[in-house]
């Protein structure tokens, strides 16, 4: 699973570099080339989609698919808004037992990918699970229970897994944007309640909209978790059509539909945010202080937070641990299962290759922009990061289309078999798609580090006779090292967690840890899936902890958290 990079105010990452020169043709050309390479798959989907309009009959159930997608996205959006927004409000406006710890712990569900949370949920609530067994034991075998493999269950699981996005953005909005304005409202004679209702909440709206958009994008990009629940979204449609028939036309048409949904989300976010730019300057003021809750209300608040945390993190992780330990005790060989080692190795290899590529590209683009080059280069640099907003199914089909076009071209040039990428099904496609998806977070970290280097440092180095390449090696790279390290870590972890793209693009016989978890879970081999799932969760906790520590530091320092990246 991938998380789009976003700024705290919900805007896409936009780096405006202060340039230090007139641009260098070679470096500028590199940025443009990267932009073209990144944009090609999406363009291919759009062009192919337009080209094949009416060419093939629309798949059966198209209408139902669209409605399901809509229902899922709205449901998950509403669910995350209620859970994430509600919890953010609770921990910001009130004091209650354990609040200070819960504030940070509530982010942890981000570390449990939906495809892991989903199968743990199923194991507990499905026909063979403890809950239904218990109900049958008490009420007899024909007791009615709601269908577990259903849309509402999928909405519940995705909401629990994705609510931290809304929670994080809403909380930072409540903390950072309200203090000065809240003070002003109070001095103008508003009561606490009125100031909160009329000033603080409206000011948080853009952040809520941004969090909502993130959640919906994630929902749209998923086509693995929802399949546990027999939910057929358009993204699932793309996957099934491609894997079932290898029919480019049909898959592309559906991918265009997915893209339209993504555009709708972005447009919707803009509309929700309104024209307002609620960006506030100024030092830390008193702001509104959390109100002390007492008695039942206090413990009720604690219980709500603990419930969300348990459902999204504690229970699934405990269950995974139980299974994994049980497995290991009954058969120690699972720990040294060669498949486990191989798949984890595959995950690591792909993740490392992706991370190194993304960081190298991000560095080159940042460096090129620093050297100047005008609007074209700035625009191209913007273009390189837009992949974060493109759903996995679209990127996947786009990569396939691009490779097949390259093959055709090469064959026409007289090279039989072309690149052979489609035929042999190499890992290159996965890498390509990952780079498109993960360039934005890499660029955000590396760019932030580069931006801290004064342009005069670059100018000085140039005037001392250093070539751009030497400046990159001796000045920019060493000084951007913190950003490079963060970018490498984030991309490696994102790539290990990622599932939909690798499902769609993996060559025959190539399996990663995330695919293995998914396949075992689909076959209901839950105990076996526990160990690799646990490894993924543990890996994914790292950036969450880093994020929490960073936010904590920033809040202590009273500075703004700009980066929201799990």
């Amino acid at each position: 699973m991938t998380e789009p990079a976003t700024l705290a105010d919900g805007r896409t990452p936009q780096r405006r570099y202060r340039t230090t020169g007139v641009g260098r043709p070679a470096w500028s050309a590199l940025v443009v080339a990267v932009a073209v390479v990144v944009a090609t798959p999406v363009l291919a989907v759009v062009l192919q989609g337009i080209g094949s309009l009416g060419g093939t009959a629309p798949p059966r159930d198209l209408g139902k698919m669209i409605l399901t997608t809509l229902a899922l996205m709205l449901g998950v959006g509403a669910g995350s808004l209620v859970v994430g927004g509600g919890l953010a409000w609770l921990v910001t406006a009130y004091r209650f037992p354990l609040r200070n710890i819960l504030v940070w712990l509530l982010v942890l569900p981000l570390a449990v990918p939906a495809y892991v949370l989903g199968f743990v949920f199923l194991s507990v609530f499905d026909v063979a699970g403890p809950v239904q067994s218990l109900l049958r034991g008490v009420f007899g075998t024909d007791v009615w229970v709601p269908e577990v493999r259903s849309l509402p269950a999928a909405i519940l699981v995705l909401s629990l897994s994705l609510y931290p996005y809304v929670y994080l953005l809403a909380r930072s909005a409540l903390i950072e944007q309200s203090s000065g304005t809240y003070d002003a409202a109070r001095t103008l004679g508003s009561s606490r309640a009125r100031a909160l209702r009329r000033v603080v909440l409206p000011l948080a709206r853009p952040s809520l909209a941004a969090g909502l958009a993130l959640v919906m994008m994630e929902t749209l990009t998923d086509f693995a978790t929802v399949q546990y629940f027999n939910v057929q979204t358009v993204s699932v449609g793309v996957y099934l059509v491609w894997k079932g028939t290898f029919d480019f036309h049909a898959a592309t048409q559906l991918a265009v539909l997915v893209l339209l949904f993504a555009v709708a989300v972005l447009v919707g976010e803009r509309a929700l945010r309104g024209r307002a730019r609620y960006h506030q300057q100024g030092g830390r003021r008193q702001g509104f202080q959390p109100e002390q809750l007492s008695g039942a209300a206090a413990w009720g608040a604690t219980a709500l937070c603990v419930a969300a945390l348990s459902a999204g993190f504690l229970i699934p992780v405990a269950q995974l641990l139980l299974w994994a330990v049980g497995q290991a005790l009954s058969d120690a060989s699972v720990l040294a299962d060669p498949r486990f080692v191989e798949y984890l190795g595959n995950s690591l290899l792909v993740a490392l290759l992706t991370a190194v590529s993304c960081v190298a590209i991000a560095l080159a683009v940042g460096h090129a922009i620093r050297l100047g080059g005008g609007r074209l280069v700035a625009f191209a640099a913007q273009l390189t990061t837009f992949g974060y907003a493109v759903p996995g199914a679209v990127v996947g089909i786009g990569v396939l289309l691009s490779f097949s076009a390259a093959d055709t071209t090469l064959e026409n040039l007289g090279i039989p078999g072309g690149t052979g990428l489609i035929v042999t099904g190499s890992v290159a496609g996965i890498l390509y798609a990952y780079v498109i998806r993960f360039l934005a977070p890499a660029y955000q970290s590396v760019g932030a580090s580069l931006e801290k280097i004064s342009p005069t440092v670059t100018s000085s180095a140039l005037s001392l006779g250093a070539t751009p390449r030497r400046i990159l090696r001796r000045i920019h790279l060493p000084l951007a090292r913190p950003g490079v390290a963060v970018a490498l870590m984030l991309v490696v972890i994102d790539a290990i967690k990622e599932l939909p793209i690798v499902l769609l693009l993996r060559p025959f016989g190539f399996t990663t840890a995330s695919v293995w978890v998914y396949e075992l879970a689909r076959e209901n081999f839950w105990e076996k899936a526990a160990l690799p799932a646990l490894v993924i969760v543990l890996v994914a906790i790292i950036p969450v902890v880093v994020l929490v520590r960073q936010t904590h530091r920033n809040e202590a320092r009273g500075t703004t958290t700009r980066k929201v990246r799990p």
Partner: protein
Amino acid sequence: MTAQMETIPVPTASEDTPPALALDGVTKHYGSSRGVDALNLSVPAGELVTLIGPSGCGKSTTLRLVAGLERPDAGRISVAGSVVAGSGVFVNPELRRVGLVFQDHALFPHLTVGQNVQFGLDRLSRTDRRRRAGELLDLVQLAHLADRYPHELSGGEQQRVALARALAPRPAVVLLDEPFSGLDESLRAQVRRDTVATLRETGTTGVLVTHDQTEALSVGSRVVVMHDGVIEQADVPEKVFERPATRFVASFMGDADFLPARVHRALLTCEIGIVSTVPGWADSDVEVDVVLRPHEVALQADPTASARVSAVEYHGAFVLHHVQLASGRTLRSWQPHTVRFPVGTAVTVTVTAGTSPTLLIGDRAVTTPPVGARRADTPQDR
């Protein structure tokens, strides 16, 4: 605008060595706003020129153009006789032999002082590099700090390292972009003196950008005043201060008040009476503006006078008096700290003896009577 340039004595210019830096009609526009327009400037080897003007006047753009950080729209820039921009040529900054010293010093924070100074010497062998860096650090008296990192140095020390680093590769010209304005007031004068001494000692050609008029006048052997993207005047400091070429230069380089005046038969008169004689204007009868600097304006208490002291500012050694004349115009006058006329005092205003003030027609200074301003009954002697 740069007409005075050819007449300026330059320290080490000789006929056969090309100027260290030459700008020839250099123009750079940013969208609709003007950057710099048709700049002409020639800096002979070894000269230290100061470039001054209000913010946005184009002085930083000029520096960036010379350094190769911007590409001129038109005109030509030469460094040590070879064209680096213009005429279809554009030499990248790293090949220009132009050194840069910035206000923020821009030291490389991850390199030691020694490594910073050696950075520009990578074409030398290791021993040569060490020796040259050592020379430079000796020159700025920081040899003992070679192993420190920049953040361990004081602001003044950082500035000296930046200078040593810029000088190490023996650039044809060093550009200093407000190098002292980031320093504490107490430190600034000393660092400035040291820097200028180092530049002179090494015979370095330098262009120092500043917005501080005292700095401009005291440091440079020549002062280039820029305004709105053009050079208003380029001359030795005394000339720039005493004979400003334009109304802008007069008011920017020191305080100045302007009064409408008239030159009639070589006699300059204005509201305060006869100011001076103007030799060579015997045949003229022309309306001008006279530039009066506060240190040239004398006051004397006189109950019958129509001018009144309107404000008094105590500046320590001197007291600045604002005087309102009968017409409503104001003049300023520096008085020694022992003299302080209360507000409202009636004073006669005169110009101190020996002053021959600058005359303006329009916004430009004039030294000879304009053609056509002669009296009709005088025969033209052309």
